[in-house]
Each structure stands twice: as structure tokens, then as C-alpha cells.
């Protein structure tokens, strides 16, 4: 009987190793190999060629535009996302459950369809687009359209990150502050916000990383005008199409490195938070 259990345990051990080997191999072939192949080809021609490709005026403008639109989106998204999470957690109103369920819609809608929606609403042939054009505002085929598209596709990130923290928040501290005579604003800024910061930061970092790479929705609303509304992913696709493989690779490497850096920093931040919570 003892020998039987021991051999069973050995067999389980062997099966466990096989499972690990298989899943790690899949991950290696599917994810690690393509990333390494790209990184290698991007840096292989040397730092001089890499710098030349990135500092090409069109490439540089595309990168600047990508970061600028992502920053504007994050600033707007952090405020509206926190406020929406607050409204959904703290207040009761008719249709609350429906709204809460629909928050995730941007995660489910294909990015291209998002772009089509925005063109249908703000495009030059639409009513709204015509009214805006009268006022001298161009949304579609210009930079405001890009920011709108980014706000749409990243809408759930901050809300879904802040909501659980707000739900779990102990309200005793807020009540204490209120009893001590602090108004709702002071209570929010001094008591609630410091607890919410990490979750707001997490949601913002995820949306920023997503915004850097967003293509489907942005390409539909941005058109294809260089030095105006051509973001880095649009630039990369253009360079692939026109056969400038290295130009595409260098800008891709910059995008990828920025995104990874953000996620690594976020991870470190969360780890530190966990350590602090545990102690």
C-alpha cells in the first residue's frame, strides 16, 4: 500500500513536470520567440541606424503625437473614471445595474467598429460633424478624433480598477473626518483619495499602455495624414507596407519598450503595496 502511494506520488510529480514543460514551451514559442526576433532585428543594424530611424521627422512626429494624445486621454480618464466609480459605488439611482454592466462595452466592441461608430457620429457627412465644421472644429481626420477614440477604448480601465477598492473601503475614517467638521471635499481629498491613489494609478497605467499601441479605432478616425494625425502604430503600418522594415522595427521597439517599462513599474509598485499591506 505504501509502495503504491509512493509510486502514485512519483507519477503525479512526472505529470506535473510534463504539464509545466508543455505550457512553458507554448508560451516560449507563442510570445517570447516573436518578441526576441523583433527586438534582435530592430537593434542588429547598430545604434546609429536605430537612432536615424527613430529621429526621422515623420517617425518622431508620430511618436510625439502618440505620447501626447495618450497623456491627454489619461488625464481626462483618471478624473472621469474615478468620478464614475464613485457614483457607481456610493449612490443609488435608477438603471444603475444596467450602467454598471455596460461599462465594459468598450472591451467587447471590436476597435474597428469603435472607429466606424465615431465616424458615423462625427464624420464630415454626419449632422454633428456638419455642425462642428460650421464652428470650425474638426474631430474626424484630426487629433481630437484620436483622443476621443482612445477615451472610448480605455473607458473601463480606471473605473474597474477603482471600483473594488472603493467598495472595500472602510467608511469609518471618512465619518470620523466628517464628525471632526471636514466638508465632503476635504474628506475626499484628505481621507479617501490617498487610499484610492494606487488603484487610480493602476488603471491609468493600463490605459496609457493600451493607448500607445491602439490601432483599429485610431486609424479609422485619424485618416492617414503625416505630420498631423498619424500615430506611431499607423506610421509603423505605413512603413511595413512601403517596405521600410527597419524604420517600422525601430519605432515598434520604442513603443514596446515604453509599454513594458510602464507595466514593470506598475508591477513593482503593486508588489511594494502588497508588502506594506502584509506588514
Amino acid at each position, binding site marked *: 500500500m505504501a509502495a503504491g502511494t509512493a509510486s502514485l506520488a512519483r507519477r503525479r510529480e512526472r505529470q506535473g513536470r510534463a504539464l509545466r514543460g508543455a505550457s512553458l514551451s507554448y508560451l516560449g514559442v507563442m*510570445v517570447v520567440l516573436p518578441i526576441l526576433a523583433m527586438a534582435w532585428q530592430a537593434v542588429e543594424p547598430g545604434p546609429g541606424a536605430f537612432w536615424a530611424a527613430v529621429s526621422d521627422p515623420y517617425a518622431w512626429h508620430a511618436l510625439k503625437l502618440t505620447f501626447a494624445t495618450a497623456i491627454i486621454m489619461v488625464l481626462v480618464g483618471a478624473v472621469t473614471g474615478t468620478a464614475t466609480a464613485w457614483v457607481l459605488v456610493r*449612490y443609488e439611482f435608477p438603471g444603475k445595474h444596467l450602467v454598471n454592466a*455596460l461599462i465594459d*462595452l468598450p472591451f467587447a*466592441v471590436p476597435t474597428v467598429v469603435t472607429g466606424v461608430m465615431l465616424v458615423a457620429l462625427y464624420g464630415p457627412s454626419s449632422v454633428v460633424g456638419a455642425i462642428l465644421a460650421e464652428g470650425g472644429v474638426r474631430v474626424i481626420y484630426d487629433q481630437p478624433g484620436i483622443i476621443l477614440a482612445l477615451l472610448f477604448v480605455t473607458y473601463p480601465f480606471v473605473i474597474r480598477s477603482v471600483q473594488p477598492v472603493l467598495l472595500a473601503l472602510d467608511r469609518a475614517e471618512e465619518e470620523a473626518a466628517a464628525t471632526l467638521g471636514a466638508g*465632503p471635499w476635504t474628506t475626499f481629498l484628505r481621507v479617501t483619495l490617498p487610499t484610492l491613489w494606487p488603484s487610480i494609478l493602476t488603471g491609468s497605467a493600463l490605459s496609457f499602455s493600451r493607448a500607445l499601441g491602439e490601432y483599429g479605432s485610431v486609424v479609422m478616425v485619424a485618416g492617414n495624414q503625416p505630420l498631423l494625425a498619424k500615430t506611431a502604430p499607423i506610421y509603423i503600418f505605413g512603413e511595413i507596407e512601403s517596405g521600410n522594415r527597419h524604420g517600422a522595427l525601430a519605432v515598434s521597439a520604442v513603443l514596446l519598450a515604453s509599454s513594458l517599462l510602464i507595466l514593470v513599474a506598475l508591477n513593482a509598485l503593486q508588489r511594494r503595496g502588497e508588502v506594506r499591506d502584509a506588514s
Partner: protein
Amino acid sequence: MRAESGEAAEAVVPLRRREGSPWGRRLLIGAELAWFAALILVPGLALARQALAGGLRPLVEALAEPAVQRSFAMSLGITLVATAVNTVFGVAMALVLVRQRFFGRTLVDGVVDMPFAVSPIVAGLMLIVLYGPDSAVGGWLEARGFQVAYALPGMVLATMFVTVPFVVRELVPILRELGEEYEQAAHTLGAGRWRTFWSVTLPSIRWGVAYGVTLTVARCLGEFGAVLVVSGNVMGRTQTATLYIAEGIESFHPEGAYAASLVLAATSFVLLVGMDLLRARLERSEEVES
């Protein structure tokens, strides 16, 4: 006497203030709902209006076009394969990450998330670099009559790449929460790994798997950038629904594109309802567990 009533008034005022004035609350709720409607709902309605501009018949006719039907069949096929493979991988990887201790586990945990950090366009470029006809691997495969880049296998690979993390990320916290006691009890009673997995582990994580699968399906159906780069956008031959839409909008016959967009938007709405139901299930099963 006066001092006493003053104290009482002071104690009452903050309690009322704490909730904020009803008008302030109404204003905040109104502002957030208006922002949500303007950003998310109104564009959706604009699409519906555009697609139904000529009534229902032109919509049905546009959807009956062979090109539209072929592209939807292609999207569904790719979704089926990518979701099946990544679900099996996702369950296995989550089990390995939670139940096993090995060197580099934290690194692997981070690598699983990497596709989230990669732009779809860059993901497509990676696959071209690795499997393109002028690469070592691509050349070797092509010599054996197997084309990956600019063909269907590449499009499947691209879709698989972008959806690698979904099932894993959904299951890791659930497995961790679940703990090992039931599995160990099954082992003690003499059940092998398979038996334990099928009759103990899987039933406890099934709603999590379903949630991860729903997210994967939504992303597969909607994937555009990565598939665009890898397909080489060969007209008519290798086209998914999203590629068809993008091409239709750029051409001068956008009716089919609007119709197909409406179908995809409706599909994502259905998936979202499914996600909401699953989340309710997940929360309930967590309550039962604890």
C-alpha cells in the same frame, strides 16, 4: 443651555454634510451618466442609425453579400481555433503558476501578460519577422510548402498571440482562492491527476473558465491590427470581418461595412450580457466557497 444646543447643532451638521447636498449628488450622477452616454452610447446609436438608414431590407441585402458571409465565416473559424488552443493553454498555465513552485515563476507570470503591452500592429510585425518568407523559420517552412505569413496560419497565430493572457489571468486568482485542500483530499483518496482535475478542479473553476473564454472570443472576433499586418491584406482571399469593414469604409461602398459593423457590435453586446451573468455566477460561487 445655549452651549448645549450649540453642541447638538454641531453634531448634526457634519452628518448631513457627509453625504453632500442632494443637488451636488444629482449633479455628479448626471454628469457621469451624460459623459458615459456621449462617449459610449451615442456613437453606438449613430452606427445603428447609419446602418439602418435605408430600412431593414438594404441591411439584410448587404449582409447577404458573399464577401460579407465569407469574411464572417473566416472570423468565426479563426476565433474557434484560437479560443480552443488558448483555453487549454490558459487552464494548464494557470495550474502551473498557482500549484507549482519552480525557478523563474515570477518572470513567467510577467511574460504571460506581455501580449497586453504589445501594439496589435507590432504583434503582426513580429510574426512577419519570425515567419516571413525571408526569415530563417519562414524560409524553412516555405520550402516544405507551408506558408505562415500572408496566409491563414499567420492570421490564426496573430489572433492566438493577442489572446494568450485572458484565460490565465482569469483563473490564477480563482485557483489561488480555491486552495489545494480538495485536490489533496482527492489525491489521498487515490485519484490520479486527470481524475482530480476533471472531478474536483474543473467544476470549481468552470465559471472562471467561461468568463475567460468569453473575453477571448470577443477579442478574437474583434482583432484587427495584428491580422491586418500578417494577412498582407490580399483582396478577397484572406479577409476577416474586421478587415472587410476597414476596407469597406475606405472604399466608396460603405453599406456592407456599416451592416457588418452593426452585426459585430450586436455580437459584442450579447457577449457583454453573457459576461455580466457570468460575473454574477462567479460572485455567488465565491460566497458559497467562503
